[in-house]
Structure formats: C-alpha cells, structure tokens
C-alpha cells in the first residue's frame, strides 16, 4: 500500500468518532438519494405502466373533416357563420401502405390497425352501450398486453369470438361460452360468443370495451376494408410526442401521443422528477459540507503530525493527497453502506405500503446503474469536499506547524 494511503487510513482510524460521523453522514446521504430515486422512479414507472397499460403510445386517426367556406371571407361586405362538421366514422386512406412503413420507423416497436366505434351489447332484455374494438389479435397484443389481464377464458378473437370486461359481463350476467348480440349505430347486428373476460383495473373500460375480430367490426360499423385508427408502441415512451409530430408531418393525419392526451400526468411526473433532483442536490451539498467541515477539524488537529511529515521529506503534494484520499475513502465507504441502507429502505417501504388490492405500490428495485452512479457521485463529492482542507494542510508551514500546531 502506498505511503499516502497508509497515512490516510491511519489518520481515519485514529480519529474514530470523527470518521464514524463523516461516514454516517455520507451513508445517510447516499441512502436518501437511492431510496428517494428508487421510490419516485418506481412510483412513476407504476403510474406510467397503469396509464399506458391500456392505451397505445401513439394513435393515428384520419384527419378531421373541416367545413370549407365557398365565399371569400376576406371581403369586408360578407357576413358568414361557418359551422363545424360532425365527425363521421371514416377510414384512414391508404392504410395498407402506411402501416408497414410505420412499423419500419426506427423508434417504433409495433403498430396495429384498429376498427372502433359505438354499439350496443344486448342479452335478453339488457342493453348496454359499448365500444367495439376490431383488432388483429397478434398485432394488438404488442400494443396492449391484454392476454395478461384475463380473469376467465382466454384472449382469443377469431371468427365470431368476443372478449369483454368483467363489469360488462356482470351487467349482462354472461360468462365464457355465452352468446351476445352486438348492434351497431348503423343497425347492423351480429351474434358473438364470449371467449374471454378481462379486468384491466378500470371499471369504465371493463364496462365499455368489446374486442372482436377486425373483419367483424368492419361489417358492423360499415367500414368495409377500412380502419379507424392505427395504434403505435414506441421504444422510449418519453419521445412519443416527438415521434407523433414526425408522423403527423409526414402523413398529414391526426396523430396524438399519450403525452398530449395525458398532459396533466406528464406535468406531475416532471414535477416529481424536479423535486427529486432538488432534494438530491441539497443532500449532496449537505454531505459535501459535512465531509469538508470534519476534514478541516482533522487538519487542525493533525497540524503537528503534518509538520513532522513535512520535516521528514513529505512534499506538499503528498500531504494534499493524504487528505484527498481521506475524503474519497469516507465517501466510498459511506456510499457502499448507503446503498445497502437505501435498498433496505426501498424493500421495507414496498412491504409496508401497498395498494388497496394488496399489490405493492411499486416494484422494489434499485438499479445497478443508480447504485454505481450514487457511489461515483459520492466519491467525487468526497474528493471535492476534501480539496479545501487538503490544500490547507499542504500549504502548512512545517516550522509553524511543529511550533504551534
């Protein structure tokens, strides 16, 4: 072990109480950073997963019908009132060509066609208003993993199969294998067989959504050969708006990302992230001040020893290294202990606080990257905090240090 390390470690061991205090401060600081970051990241991930678990990241729809006034309104002598047009169910033009090109976009993971529209589900005397979701099952499951949320039967949508939510099943008193009549607004109707019942944790969607094969939906909604929208999943959910704007620019269609339709959620997430960063910043500052203040005291206490070491041939640079190493070392030990403490806190929190249904409110996971970065930041902070005390030690006049230290 080099001379500087030996002296640094011995000085730390000798000043036991100070060393414990400084390591304790770094430990608590790193633990708070790891716990808070894991908690907020976990809660955000859970919130985003719950929000995006039932919807596409991006939805592409036909451009809205707009009324085109025939008169030149720039002429001052004309008074005109242009009424907005009612939006009828329309297909996306050229969707068979658009869909493969969307799938090949670099940031797009999956794209799925959808035929959706209003209808009634009728069984006996009960009639419920529903939304028909005409899908290609294999494609759709890449957008929403509905097959993981089945509570009865299976997610099979072929021929005249239908998959409905738990609330609708209760409202109509149906189970897997039962028949259901679907009547669209266009007065077209068909009989379907219930093959599965899902529960996606949202009563309204459990009541409204009826998944049927795309071809059947096209018939019921009078949209032969057409689709009403394209659902897209992207690799980085927080780049969804940027990708949506790009698609919108390229196609001229109406393209909405989850970030636009859930603007309030996004604002809340950003506020949480900002708060976390602020707390982390203050914790880092407090840890740095703690390390610096204790090391300054150590330098004062060790003045005589520093003078002796200088007299025996230790250069100012090596004296500086001794105190920098002390700062880095206590921060490293503190960050390792803090990581363990942070992981413990995350697991305790996840075990104690749960959702109403008993599931954890977030997954108690601490990423290796977070731990590694927290350790690196802590060591860097330790080194930076030690610079001022180390420079003070290095600049010490050996004569004065020996005489008055």
């Amino acid at each position, binding site marked *: *072990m*080099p001379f500087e390390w030996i002296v640094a470690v011995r000085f730390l061991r000798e000043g036991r109480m100070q060393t414990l205090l400084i390591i304790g401060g770094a430990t608590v600081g790193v633990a708070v950073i790891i716990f808070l970051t894991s908690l907020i990241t976990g809660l955000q991930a859970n919130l985003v997963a719950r929000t995006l678990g039932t919807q596409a990241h991006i939805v592409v729809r036909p451009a809205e019908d707009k009324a085109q006034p025939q008169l030149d309104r720039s002429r001052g002598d004309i008074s005109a009132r242009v009424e907005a047009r009612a939006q009828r169910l329309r297909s996306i033009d050229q969707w068979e060509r658009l869909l493969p090109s969307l799938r090949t976009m670099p940031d797009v993971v999956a794209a799925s066609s959808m035929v959706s529209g209003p209808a009634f589900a009728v069984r006996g005397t009960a009639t419920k208003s529903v939304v028909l979701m005409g899908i290609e099952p294999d494609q759709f499951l890449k957008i929403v993993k509905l097959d993981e949320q089945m509570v009865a039967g299976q997610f099979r949508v072929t021929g005249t199969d239908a998959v409905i939510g738990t609330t609708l099943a209760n409202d109509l008193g149906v189970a897997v294998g039962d028949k259901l009549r679907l009547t669209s607004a266009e007065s077209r109707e068909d009989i379907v067989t219930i093959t599965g019942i899902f529960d996606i944790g949202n009563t309204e969607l459990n009541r409204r959504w009826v998944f049927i094969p795309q071809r059947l939906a096209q018939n019921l909604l009078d949209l032969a050969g057409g689709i009403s929208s394209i659902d897209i999943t992207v690799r980085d959910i927080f780049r969804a708006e940027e990708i949506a704007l790009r698609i919108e620019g390229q196609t001229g269609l109406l393209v909405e990302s989850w970030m636009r339709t859930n603007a309030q959620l996004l604002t809340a997430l950003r506020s949480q992230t900002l708060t976390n960063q602020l707390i982390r910043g203050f914790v880092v500052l407090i840890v740095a001040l703690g390390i610096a203040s204790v090391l300054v005291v150590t330098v004062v206490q060790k003045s005589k020893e520093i003078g002796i070491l*200088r007299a025996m*041939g230790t250069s100012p640079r090596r004296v500086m290294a001794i105190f920098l190493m002390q700062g880095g070392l206590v921060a490293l030990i503190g960050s390792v202990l803090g990581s363990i403490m942070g992981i413990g806190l995350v697991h305790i929190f996840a075990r104690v606080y749960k959702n109403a249904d008993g599931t954890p409110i977030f997954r108690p996971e601490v990423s290796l990257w977070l731990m590694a970065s927290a350790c690196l930041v802590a060591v860097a902070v330790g080194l930076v905090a030690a610079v001022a005390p180390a420079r003070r030690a290095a600049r010490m006049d050996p004569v004065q240090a*020996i005489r008055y230290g």
Partner: protein
Amino acid sequence: MAEAILQLTGVRKSYNIGTPVQAEVLHGIDLNLKAGEFAALIGPSGSGKSTLLNIVGLLEQPTSGQVMIRGRDTGTLDEAQLTALRGRSIGFIFQFHYLISAFTAIENVMMPRLIDRGRPDAEMRDRALELLGRVGLTDHAAKRPNQLSGGQQQRVAIARALSMSAPLVLADEPTGNLDTKSADEVFALMRAFNADQGIAFLIVTHDPRLAARCDRVIELLDGCVVDGAG
C-alpha cells in the same frame, strides 16, 4: 580531513520585511560542521538558535547568505529538491519527541524511509527493528507512542532520525523534557551513534551540563556566533 557536512556563509534572516516591525534575528552567520562532529548550539532565549536550526534543517530559507549541505548550495534548489534533500540528508529530533500517534514505535521509525521509497518493504522493517534494538526498545516495537514513557518516546525519535542514515542530525532540546536519568540515556545514545557511525550532531540545548559533554560548543548571542564557529 573530514568532509564538510554543513557550511553557512553570511546567513542573515529577517522577519516582517518591508514593515515597520522588520527585525533581523541572524546577522551574517558563518558556521561549518564536519562529518562526525558532535556540537552543541547554545545561547539565551531569543538569540536565534531555533531560527538557525530551521535554516540548517531547510525548513526555512535565509534572507541572504549561503547554506551548503554536503557541498550542495541549497539556495539553487526548488521546493521539491529541498524536500528531497531534507528527507535524505537530515534527521530531526525535537524536544517533544513528536512521534505520530497513529503509528506504532516501529512504524514511526520506518516513516522516513517509507516517505522516501513510497511503499513499505521488509528491508525497511529490518532496519527499523535494528535501530529500535540499538536504542533498547525491541520489545516495545508494537506499542503506540502513548504507551511509552517520555524517555522511551525520545529514544524512538532518535531511532527515527537515524532511519535514513542521514549524515547530519539536528536535535532541538532533545533532553529538555526528560528527567536526569532519561536525559543521560538519550545523550549517551546520540554519542554512541556519533562514535559508531560518524553521524554529525548539532544539538540545541539550554543545559550547560549537556553542552559541556559535546566536542564543540557554538555560542549564539543576539543573532551572531560569538564562539565556536569553526
């Protein structure tokens, strides 16, 4: 003829230069010390003994004049070269031992070599044990300074000063804090190393009894050498 270890020519030292309280404490000191000499530096308080010792020990720079250590003009050296020369050529013994409390007796003795070489090795430890044996403290090698008596601590400090086999040892009141018996033991040890290994000693002391037992007495008065300049 013995080699000159130390040559001081016209050494002056002033403090607070350029201020109304400027004071010159050394007024053109000329002093020579040869290898193997055993000299006492005496003088009343305020005569400039400590300042002279600090200049000889390369801990302070003179305001003017020349300080030569083993024929090398120290005025031409930078801070790093001075530090290296000090570490290899000069051993220090202080009045209050000044052992490093975080290290054991043997580690304190190893310290100058550790500083010089950067890493501990077996030879370093053997040399330290040998020196501790010479000062009669082999059994106390693993003890911390606070587990040793004042006399024992000063003997460890002597062993440390000799660790680098430096040709010159500067001792600032080495027995000033010891009882008569311990002071005699410490003096005898310094004498023995001087006789056996030809190490030159320059000992600052207020003790006329100790000074009388040295080969040469250099007397400093009001910043001037009044006797024994050599």
